[in-house]
């Protein structure tokens, strides 16, 4: 299976990655090779095998509905590039 450079730029856009045209060519080649490798899996007969949602053969533990977290806003916000009036500040976003 091959992946075209145009698809690469679409995927990069979704992941917010900036790629040059050269990068596009290279990723197209490398990702195509990876997909071709993975495609060998299609040769295995998986009829009767349930799709696997998780590699661990365990089920989800549950927690009680109680408030266990305290307010650590000051600690968390010390890591943020910009904070004002308790809000995290980002460049203007318009819907």
């Amino acid at each position, binding site marked *: 299976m091959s992946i075209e450079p145009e698809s690469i730029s679409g995927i990069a856009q*979704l992941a917010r990655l900036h790629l040059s045209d050269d990068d596009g060519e290279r990723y197209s080649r490398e990702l195509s090779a990876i997909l071709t490798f993975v495609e060998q899996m299609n040769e295995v007969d998986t009829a009767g095998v349930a799709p696997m949602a998780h590699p661990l053969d365990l089920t989800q533990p549950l927690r009680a509905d109680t*408030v266990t977290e305290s307010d650590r806003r000051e600690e968390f916000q010390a890591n943020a590039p910009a904070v004002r009036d*308790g809000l995290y500040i980002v460049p203007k976003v318009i819907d």
Partner: protein
Amino acid sequence: MAWEAVVGLEIHAQLATRSKIFSGASTAVGAEPNRQACAIDLGLPGVLPVLNEVVLRMAVMFGLATNATIAPCSIFARKNYFYPDLPKGYQISQYESPIVEHGELEVEFDDGSTKCIGITRAHLEEDAGKSVHDLFPSETGVDLNRAGVPLLEIVSEPDMRSAAEAVAYMRTIHSLVRYLGICDGNMEEGSFRCDANVSVRRSGDSALGIRAEIKNLNSFRFVERAIEYEVARQIEILESGGSIIQETRQYDSVTGETRAMRGKEEANDYRYFPDPDLLPVELQSDYIDRVRDGIPELPAAKTQRFMSQYGLGRRDARRLTLSPDTADYYEAVVRASGQPKLAANWITTDLAAALNRDGLEIYRCPIEPTELAALINCIIDGTISGTMAKKVFAAVWRREGDPISIIEKQDLSQVSDPETIDNLVDQVLASHPAQVDQYRAGKTKLLGFFVGQVMKITRGQANPEMVNHALHRKL
């Protein structure tokens, strides 16, 4: 040829839990920004989400109440997109194997007709944070208190054929989630909101037209207006030879119009995949049975019971069972008064009007059920007339006292003493000899005049039935 509207709704109901869906941070409203956003909600490295057991139970309750299939094994998925109020770069949601599928709900319309609306699926997900655009001129502020709040997204089949049907369906879901106690239904705070998928087609066509999705409608009125506007807009485009574009639109409640949202289209590829941080959720049938045992009496069953137990008409029974609070209030009044019909009348007319006028929910009603019952008993035993009762009601509403003390204080009790009434009637007849002659000559319409005179003397407090009776006897 006529056009037909096709509508499906995606309703987001915020689940009424104390803590978030995957963390132990509080969901209480009104906190200062970011005081209830913990490391898990912020998506800091190394954290692990763990599912809240109450969230799971609430979703199962909803599924059981809508005759849906509860998935024996359900999985969580990552929905990937970038937005500043989504710290992880993905929202934990469900894609394949949602917890609830293939449900249905019978919806009753104002004219009494009913329709069964299909529920495609209901899945669990976390809410995003809130972006504040209007506080700073050139920056956006982000409050992540809401990030991780549990939501149940309820997706209907495109089974509705008008804005009115869509609103009736939404009201039925709203009533149901409040009965189940899984959502507070507060639309102003955004606890219950919906997206509407709207398309039109020629009547008789079976294929669906191209749809537009109207985002974030948070009142029944907005849902109705937005759909009506959108249907008209699409018909106009199609009739003038144009075609509909599949897009996301926003409703402007000021102009009553919908308009295309910018920038959302190109990224409409969420690349869902199973979240490796969360294991599959397995539900045993004995767990589901235990949840089923905990489901309270639901609106449809309560309506039936009110009709048979209290002899109410369908319309009144439905109005009284729309919210569990109203139904409880009604039953408290009936218990205290023993008057199911009068209790229904007062609650659906005077009480409903007063609540509506003052913008109050019934749980904040200034009149206690026992007080309304006392008022009703005063009408039944003849202490006050129906007209006086309305005055007493208004005074109790203003908290001037309880009904009995108001009746005593303002001397509103009805004149029901036969002797007094006889004397009053004699007095009126004696002072209007001309009218008495006319009446006796056949002008029986004058009866109302005499009643009016007696009422004038007693400031409306004479028992009208007894006055009528006495007049008939004496004329």
